[in-house]
């Protein structure tokens, strides 16, 4: 899976994207967020409060219960502030 980070999520984790292998343990977006948070450091900071984050899978807004598959593009970002 290609995992993308935007705005302060990108700043806290220190990168804009990375490749993460899809495994059975990463069933949902929430599972992936928990795995990333467990890395500690900036990841823990970015993913400490999931209520402050939003996610997209394959460029569509989703909830934490969205199911992941190999090859998905997953993005984590703050609530949007355009316009």
């Amino acid at each position: 899976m290609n995992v993308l980070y935007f705005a302060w999520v990108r700043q806290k984790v220190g990168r804009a994207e990375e490749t993460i292998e899809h495994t059975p343990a990463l069933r949902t977006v929430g599972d992936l967020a928990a795995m990333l948070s467990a890395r500690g450091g900036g990841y823990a900071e970015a993913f400490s409060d999931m209520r402050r984050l939003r996610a997209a899978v394959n460029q569509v807004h989703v909830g934490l219960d969205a199911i992941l598959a190999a090859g998905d593009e997953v993005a984590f970002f703050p609530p949007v502030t355009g316009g």
Partner: protein
Amino acid sequence: MIANIHIQNEDFDLGDEVEALSGDGTGAVATFIGLVRGDDGLTALTLEHYPGMTEREIARIAQEAQTRWPLSGITIIHRVGRLAVGERIVLVAVGAAHRGSAFEACQFLMDYLKTRAPFWKQEERDGTVDWVEARDSDDAAADRWRKA
């Protein structure tokens, strides 16, 4: 009708965009322009977005507007990058046969764009840079368009 959607650094010309929406069947064009507001010592905004998803999400919002109102054209231009106070950020322009549809669709598009399109703003004040927090009032503005 295909919505005209642009994400760009460059400014846009309102006259040109209104002209482009003006055809024989168009009796009304409603436009909204968002500007960088210089309150509380703000000097500039920097906008970033999620390339690909931004265009797709705005296209979805435009498609939804077309199912709700009879429209002859939609143009949405959203700028990204660093924008100083007074600069234009966003244009939503809607063409329709009559004003009611044009006004309503314009407001609907803007309300949804604020809460769905993946843009993020940073504010510059006195040399410090902070991310803008999303507002509950924007969610409320979008929610009122939900069908009961």
